[in-house]
């Protein structure tokens, strides 16, 4: 956007007004020199403005210098401060901002918008030094070398106050080359670190999956076993080989797989079939009938002559008694389930897929227990603890709202964050891996080493508690400055347009009034009428009338006998010799001096209806009444 320098200047000063002071403003040449020194020595303060105040406490800045510096601080310095670089880096980066400020003062703030070479150098230096505190060894030396040489280059390119066009063009081209050099170095660094990160990611991806599978498998088994009475062998089975199998299924087939869904269902089914109360009541009747053969604890049988014995091995399953039809149906289903359960379990018992004997042994225990339960053998519940899981920061009773999770879901690998631990210096960490399916995030430092692994909810909490804060993305400073300048100019242009239009309207109204005032009307009037206090009043009397007008005075504006408009005195500003009349709704009917009103009265274009007194003021009386009522109520 083309920016008129005057408009921009006015906009900046309006946006960043300086407090009036008696202190003399620093001369521009001196200011430029100070800023040049800051590039070489660095800046300890959080803003260029405060650094200048510290250097020259007895001087002030001119309005436009103040505004330019404030703008640059608001777009650039604030980024450095919030990024929490180590002190040795932040002070040098602030020195670069001082250099940018010097350019803006020499060449006009719009130069930063038109040619962004200097800003790009700053952005590249920020990119180069992110994660500085974690860089070690040879990489640290080379980054440091590049940083220092870039600062020297910047200083050399910007120290001359030459404002010739050719010079500036050459200078800007060289700044671009400098920025490209820094960016090229950073890109090479990133490629090196990228390889380290990839190795780490490849290793961690497997661990992620395993850990998550383990946790989820444990949670599934825990949920199925919770508050259930289970025999010891079943507890051991579920928390042992069955848990391992679930974990394997998750790792191999995934959360959405049929195998996993079947395995979770089988877990629930197995637990359900281990509950005696789930057995059909008819079966209990079978075990209590004295005619039926029973198994004693010693394994002997009491067989009554002529009565069928208990089913031998290989015989048909026990037939249900003749009970309620509905219950019979449920019992049939249950028997069917129990009958097929071992085979179903076998298919999912992948932890023992290579050890069939062990699998057989486990399943036969389950079958045996089923038989015991069905025959009414009392089963003692075995006490067990849930399988331990890695809950991370949040426990099962804590959840994060969707509004907090939303920004986490939008995160993209490559984003940098400032991570602040208690009583520790802040560090820069990078989101390197985001596993949407498992909702896991993995962060690395500048060396490509893993520093943090959390799930979405945990990181949502870290962000909301400001333990982790996003660093501005590359290019943020340049964008911020451009946008600020553009918005300021738009605002100023709009403002000037409104003011211009208002002035036009007022001028038009005034012209109109003047036209009416200069209209000469020939009136034939008898002498005796002229001597009476009729419609035409002499100027002196008119002035006296005007001086007695109060706020709220009512007059008629216009021509006597024609189109008189009722007007109320709304504003009487003696300092400006300005009186404004409005209609009932506040519409401005005209702005006059007292003399002009007197002229109008004397000329018959204005007539005073009443001079306005406080007693007649309806507005005041309404409010006084209301306040009195309010006070009485409070008193009582």
């Amino acid at each position, binding site marked *: 956007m083309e920016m008129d320098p005057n408009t921009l200047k006015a906009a900046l000063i309006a946006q960043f*007004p300086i407090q009036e002071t008696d202190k003399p403003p620093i001369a521009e040449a001196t200011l430029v020199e100070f800023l040049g020194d800051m590039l070489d020595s660095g800046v300890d303060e959080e803003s260029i403005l405060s650094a200048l105040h510290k250097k020259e406490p007895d001087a002030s800045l001119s309005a436009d210098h103040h505004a330019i510096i404030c703008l640059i601080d608001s777009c650039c310095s604030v980024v450095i401060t919030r990024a929490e670089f180590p002190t040795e880096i932040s002070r040098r980066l602030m020195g670069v901002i001082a250099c940018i400020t010097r350019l803006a003062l020499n060449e006009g703030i719009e130069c930063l918008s038109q040619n962004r070479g200097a800003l790009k150098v700053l952005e590249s230096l920020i990119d180069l030094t992110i994660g500085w505190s974690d860089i070690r060894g040879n990489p640290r030396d080379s980054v440091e070398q590049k940083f220092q040489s870039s600062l020297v280059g910047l200083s050399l390119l910007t120290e001359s106050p030459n404002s010739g066009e050719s010079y500036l063009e050459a200078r800007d081209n060289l700044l671009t080359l400098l920025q490209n050099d820094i960016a090229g170095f950073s890109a090479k660094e990133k490629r090196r670190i990228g390889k380290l990160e990839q190795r780490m990611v490849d290793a961690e991806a497997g661990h992620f999956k395993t850990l998550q599978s383990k946790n989820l498998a444990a949670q599934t088994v825990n949920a199925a076993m919770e508050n259930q009475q289970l025999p010891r062998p079943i507890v051991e089975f579920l928390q042992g080989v069955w848990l391992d199998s679930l974990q394997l299924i998750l790792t191999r087939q995934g959360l959405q797989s049929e195998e996993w869904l079947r395995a979770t269902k089988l877990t629930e089914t197995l637990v359900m079939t281990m509950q005696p109360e789930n057995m059909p009541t008819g079966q209990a009747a079978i075990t209590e009938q004295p005619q039926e053969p029973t198994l004693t604890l010693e394994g002997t049988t009491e067989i009554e002559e002529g009565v069928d014995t208990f089913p031998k091995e290989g015989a048909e399953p026990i037939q249900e008694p003749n009970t309620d039809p509905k219950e019979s149906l449920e019992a049939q289903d249950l028997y069917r389930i129990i009958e097929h359960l071992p085979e179903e379990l076998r298919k999912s018992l992948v932890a023992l897929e290579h050890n069939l004997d062990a699998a057989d042994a486990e399943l036969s225990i389950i079958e045996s227990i089923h038989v015991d339960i069905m025959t009414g053998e009392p089963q003692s519940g075995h006490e067990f603890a849930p399988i331990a899981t890695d809950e991370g920061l949040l426990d099962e009773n804590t959840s994060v709202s969707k509004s907090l999770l939303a920004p986490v879901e939008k995160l993209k690998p490559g984003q940098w964050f400032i991570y602040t631990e208690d009583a520790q210096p802040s560090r820069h960490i990078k989101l390197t891996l985001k596993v949407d399916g498992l909702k896991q995030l993995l962060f690395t430092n500048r060396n490509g080493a893993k520093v943090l692994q959390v799930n979405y909810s945990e990181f949502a909490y870290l962000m909301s508690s400001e333990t982790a804060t996003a660093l501005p993305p590359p290019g943020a400073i340049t964008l911020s400055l451009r946008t600020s300048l553009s918005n300021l100019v738009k605002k100023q242009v709009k403002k000037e347009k409104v003011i211009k239009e208002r002035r036009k309207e007022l001028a038009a109204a005034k012209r109109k009034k003047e036209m009416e005032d200069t209209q000469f009307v020939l009136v034939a009037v008898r002498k005796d009428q002229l001597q009476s206090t009729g419609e035409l009043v002499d100027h002196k009397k008119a002035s006296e009338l005007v001086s007695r007008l109060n706020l709220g005075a009512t007059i008629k504006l216009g021509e006597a006998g024609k189109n008189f408009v009722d007007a109320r005195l709304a504003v009487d*500003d003696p300092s400006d010799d300005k009186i404004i009349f409005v209609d009932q709704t*506040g519409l401005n009917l005209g702005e006059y001096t007292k003399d002009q009103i007197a002229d109008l009265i004397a000329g018959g274009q204005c007539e005073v209806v009443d001079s306005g007194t406080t007693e007649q003021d309806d*507005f005041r009386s309404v409010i006084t009444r209301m306040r009195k009522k309010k006070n009485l109520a409070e008193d009582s």
Partner: protein
Amino acid sequence: MTDYVDERSSPRFEKDVTIFIEVQAASSKNSSKQDIIICKSLDLSSQGLQVVLDRSIPEGRILRLCLDIKNKEPIFVVAEVVWMYQNTKSGDYHVGFKLLESTGTDIADWQQTISEIFINAD
């Protein structure tokens, strides 16, 4: 929605106080009644204020206002509507007033009171 230009340059602070606005003065000529709105301010400064209303007031209108604070005398001023826009979500009208210097008003008291409120708010 009316575009407005923020000409406010004085420091302002958010404060909701009761404001009376005379949007229509009484007239004996056509027997039209006075119309006064009681509303709340959104922010105040020594030069003006912003209020929220449920009806619009055209820009340029010069109206009488009264600042009503408990345990203080009411402060009467004259102000001009310098901007107005409608909040499309709530439907409310935000109206910005600029105080006008005039005899017969309490503009000096206004500025004094605003300073006191500001200091107490700190």
